[in-house]
């Protein structure tokens, strides 16, 4: 059951809409075209008719080796097949484009197709271009590659201590300027290292209580419903593309660089995405499709099968070795963390994840001494990139398990213990940045109250045991970034908003329309948001990292305010009343001495003397940061704003099977201000559900670099049967001083603390602490058995033997 909080709920502290008739800011209006989403009537990229029969279909021959040199690629047999038009190899693309065939946001390390070396099982080596997809796919079997195997790097231990290197040298890209110093570094799989030092953790040897553990989060895959698809063609001398991407502006730059074209000669269009969660970002199918279209001068369509989608990107597997220590009063005095993110064959944004997530590895707590080392390593596996949470869930798993254990050691309630140490407004966090609009205590209190923390469940004696768990999470928003908005006010007082934010189910089209409506005093249903098209919509860094509400939202607010001023100026001109005395309301423009408001329609009509005309305004919103110090990780402003979230869980544990059943899960997030409370609740719930999968069974299993469960038959996702009996999303609003109407984003907030909250409930119910995700029933049962075996000789013992000072190292 999903709790839908309604306005009559007295505990609901979200503000009611200021202008209910306009479905503007604060309105719970339904998203744009919900029926179309559910019934499949929304046109996604893959639904777009390729148009002419001249569209060729691309299928990829993929590497069968984790790490090998390519000796030769034999394509004649495939070329002889009826319907096959061409076979393009990675070497062909390299011959045509040179080093420009390498792309990537952090490192220019990823070839559109492998040309000299393959670095993971499943890496594209050759593309078969045929009249239809089935022929193309069948013909990939007739491509033969001769390999010379190289020693492979299968895990983080191989990466750090082995003699094999996935890349000969590091090649920082032009995108992230701060990686330049890594250019040309050789003989390492570590492509980035972040260090944070605050106070002196070594000086704190005398702490009264300490907990140290080694944590593991496995790689996972996003599994959006819609599969990635790219159609690319050459028109004149322009490269045009329709593609499933969250990053159209990035893709345009990447393709322009690759083909050495001016930006004006590259067009990237998107359609609404059928989910993404970080999987359709940066370099997926686009460089490959663009390169093939360019080289062949053909319109080509590339679509990933479900199995291929698993190969395109994953969430970083991460090992975190960490500790927290408290003094005799139970006050936190030190925290340390050594983090290794496994980024696979290509860095993607792994280095960014390593820094931005590493810096919050000690959690949202007041801790005077913090020491963190966070490293990003290559391995011979499919590349890992962004995934809802951007690496933060992996460190939250560590700090929220540690502090829970530490609370138990000091004999304090885990909720109260956290509450005592949480960062407050104005506090300085471990990396030196001040906290604002991050109401951790409010979030924590809200979920604790929702699950009735003060009255814990009866633990039980028999097969089923019950417990409660709680956790918080903190994440910084991507900074610095750039957003632009162009607004056209149509003469009939409707509006067309041009932004490059990609609607992917998160509801951005809806809330951006609500912001325009709020400022221009029109119904938000009269605001159309134009799908991202780099020929038409202005630059926007990316649609990711929960950044759109704040950044693009601010650009949209600014452009709407400009439009309002423009309208008032026109009305002043037409009425003779000074603009400063005029006001824009639902009825039109009115001022003192003008009892009859001027209708917006009439003001625009009078201005242009034509119907159907448009007034245009443009705006920009850019944020900046202070890059962190390379040795201490300290920055006076590492981020534009913070996300704060909390989760509380009541769980039942089946001690016969080890299965965890969630009876109630409450998830809260501080969103500053909910532009649309209904959509915020959906984001919180959706993120929590993804988090439940990650907590309980979601995991990509690899054996020698090969996927064992890379199909939907074997890959595990939460189903209806895995839902909590009750799921309560809770909005917390601590307005941000520069957010649009105080608002911040919410896409990732709900996922951060889910896994540790569930593990903490497990700990509460049966007394075992698991450090490896997922918490499969088998792992839980084995832990219960171990505990039972350890305790059975001394049945009267109260505390479990794992409660030793040094943890499980």
């Amino acid at each position: 059951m999903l709790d839908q909080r309604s306005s009559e709920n007295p505990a609901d502290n979200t503000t009611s809409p200021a202008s209910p008739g306009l479905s503007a800011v604060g309105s719970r209006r339904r998203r744009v075209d919900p029926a179309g989403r559910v019934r499949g009537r929304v046109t996604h990229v893959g639904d777009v008719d390729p148009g002419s029969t001249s569209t060729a279909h691309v299928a990829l021959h993929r590497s069968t080796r984790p790490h090998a040199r390519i000796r030769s690629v034999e394509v004649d047999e495939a070329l002889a097949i009826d319907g096959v038009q061409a076979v393009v190899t990675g070497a062909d693309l390299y011959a045509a484009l040179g080093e420009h065939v390498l792309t990537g946001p952090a490192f220019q390390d990823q070839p559109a197709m492998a040309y000299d070396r393959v670095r993971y099982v499943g890496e594209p080596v050759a593309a078969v271009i045929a009249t239809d997809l089935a022929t193309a796919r069948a013909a990939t079997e007739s491509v033969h590659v001769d390999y010379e195997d190289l020693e492979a790097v299968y895990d983080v231990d191989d990466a750090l201590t082995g003699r094999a290197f996935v890349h000969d040298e590091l090649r920082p890209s032009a995108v992230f300027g701060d990686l330049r110093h890594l250019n040309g570094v050789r003989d390492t799989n570590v492509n980035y290292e972040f260090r944070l030092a605050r106070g002196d953790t070594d000086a704190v040897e005398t702490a009264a209580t300490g907990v140290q553990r080694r944590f593991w989060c496995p790689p996972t895959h996003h599994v959006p419903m819609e599969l990635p698809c790219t159609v690319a063609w050459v028109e004149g001398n322009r490269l045009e593309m329709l593609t499933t991407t969250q990053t159209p502006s990035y893709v345009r730059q990447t393709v322009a660089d690759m083909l050495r074209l001016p930006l004006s000669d590259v067009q990237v269009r998107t359609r609404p995405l059928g989910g993404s969660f970080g999987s359709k970002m940066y370099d997926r199918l686009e460089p490959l499709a663009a390169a093939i279209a360019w080289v062949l001068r053909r319109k080509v369509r590339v679509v990933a099968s479900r199995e291929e989608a698993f190969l395109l990107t994953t969430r970083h597997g991460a090992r975190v070795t960490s500790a927290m220590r408290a003094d005799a009063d139970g006050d936190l005095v030190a925290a340390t963390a050594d983090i290794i993110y496994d980024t696979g064959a290509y860095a993607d944004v792994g280095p960014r994840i390593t820094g931005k997530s590493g810096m919050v590895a000690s959690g949202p707590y007041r801790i005077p001494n913090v020491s963190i080392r966070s490293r990003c390593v290559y391995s011979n596996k499919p590349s890992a990139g962004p995934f809802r949470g951007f690496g933060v869930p992996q460190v939250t798993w560590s700090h929220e398990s540690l502090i829970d254990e530490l609370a138990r050691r000091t004999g304090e309630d885990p909720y109260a213990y956290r509450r005592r140490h949480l960062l407050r407004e104005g506090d300085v966090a471990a990396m030196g940045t001040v906290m604002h609009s991050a109401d951790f205590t409010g979030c924590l209190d809200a979920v604790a109250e929702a699950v009735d923390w003060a009255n814990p469940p009866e633990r039980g004696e028999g097969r089923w045991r019950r417990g409660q768990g709680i956790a918080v999470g903190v994440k910084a928003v991507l900074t610095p970034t750039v957003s632009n908005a162009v607004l056209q006010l149509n003469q009939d007082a409707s509006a067309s908003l041009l932004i490059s934010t990609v609607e992917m189910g998160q509801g951005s089209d809806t809330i951006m329309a609500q912001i325009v409506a709020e400022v221009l005093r029109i119904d938000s249903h009269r605001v159309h948001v134009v799908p991202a098209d780099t020929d038409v919509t202005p630059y926007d860094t990316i649609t990711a990292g929960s950044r759109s509400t704040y950044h693009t939202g601010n650009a949209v607010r600014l452009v709407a305010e400009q439009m309002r001023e423009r309208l008032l100026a026109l009305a002043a001109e037409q009425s003779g009343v000074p603009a400063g005395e005029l006001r824009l309301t639902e009825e039109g423009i009115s001022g003192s001495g003008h009892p009859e408001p001027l209708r917006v329609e009439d003001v625009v009509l009078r201005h242009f003397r034509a119907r159907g005309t448009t007034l245009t305004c443009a705006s920009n919103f850019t944020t900046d940061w202070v890059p962190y110090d390379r040795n201490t990780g300290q920055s006076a402003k590492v981020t534009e704003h913070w996300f704060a979230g909390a989760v509380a869980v009541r769980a039942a544990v089946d001690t016969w099977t080890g299965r965890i059943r969630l009876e109630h899960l409450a998830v809260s997030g501080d969103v500053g201000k909910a532009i649309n409370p209904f959509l915020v609740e959906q984001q919180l719930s959706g993120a929590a559900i993804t988090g439940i999968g990650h907590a309980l069974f979601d995991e990509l299993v690899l054996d020698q670099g090969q996927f064992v469960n890379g199909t939907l038959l074997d890959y595990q996702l939460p189903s209806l049967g895995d839902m909590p009996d009750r799921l309560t999303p809770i909005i917390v609003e601590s307005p941000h001083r520069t957010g649009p109407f105080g608002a911040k984003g919410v896409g990732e907030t709900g996922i951060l603390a889910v896994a540790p909250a569930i593990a903490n409930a497990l700990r509460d119910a049966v007394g075992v602490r698991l450090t490896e995700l997922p918490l499969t029933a088998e792992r839980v049962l084995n832990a219960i058995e171990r505990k039972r075996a350890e305790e059975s000789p001394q049945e009267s013992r109260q505390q479990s033997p794992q409660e030793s000072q040094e943890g499980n190292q």
Partner: protein
Amino acid sequence: MTMLHRPESLDEACMLLAELDDAQVYGGGTAIEILRRQGILFTEDLVDVSRIPELRAVETGPDGVRAGAMVPVRRMETDPAIRRAVPLAARTYGHVANPRVRNTATVGGNVAHGDYRLDPPTALLVLDATIEARSVRGPRSLAVREFFTGFQETALEHDEVITAITVPAQPTDAVGRFVKMSSLSANDWPSASAAALLTTEDGRRTLHLGLGALAPVPVHLSLDVSGMPTERAVSEAMAAAEPLMDPIPDVRGSSDYKRRLGLVAVREAATDVCEERTHA
């Protein structure tokens, strides 16, 4: 290229199966499409038997149920006459995958798939069902207890097509229960399942068990539990079942864990039938 044959009669289907080198009977397609996609099944000739009317027939009577091979799994679950005659089988069919699959998957295709994790065979074993097959050589009947011969292997010959399954009526005083356990996501393939049926004949109480996902083939066992209190009967059942379990380890769990789940499934199913709890 794949060739789809669509015979209108059983004779025609048998002819095709005899003549073609490596033909595969196509029922609902829910398993075949997955196997083809996985690159496990390469057959070029598919013989779609959906146009043969007699394969869709269902006969129910005091002796039990005879269901044509093309009867949808969903009908086995919902048909009131089937539910009355063989309630344990009907309830077990109701656990297959999800309603969409059950609407498409067929009774014949289900057993022909031969997967060790399938739900219906556990109940069919317990109820001693019979599988009818046909080829150009004529019809034959196979006891379901003899049908599953190895991992993904059945006693069906290459030129044979399943025509029907006959399930003897469940004695009116018998009590049945099916328990299915997954180790990861709730709607995943089972890691263990157990069908239990408790029958009473001439004062003798017999507990029949069918186990799924716990060995390379579905397993059947029966034990005399006359005069035993529930607790004793259940522990005897677990002791008898355990040596027959030989679970295949995979991403869903180790062999040891699956055996433990199997014992829980047997324990739950056996307890419920002994205490006459028949709810699904």
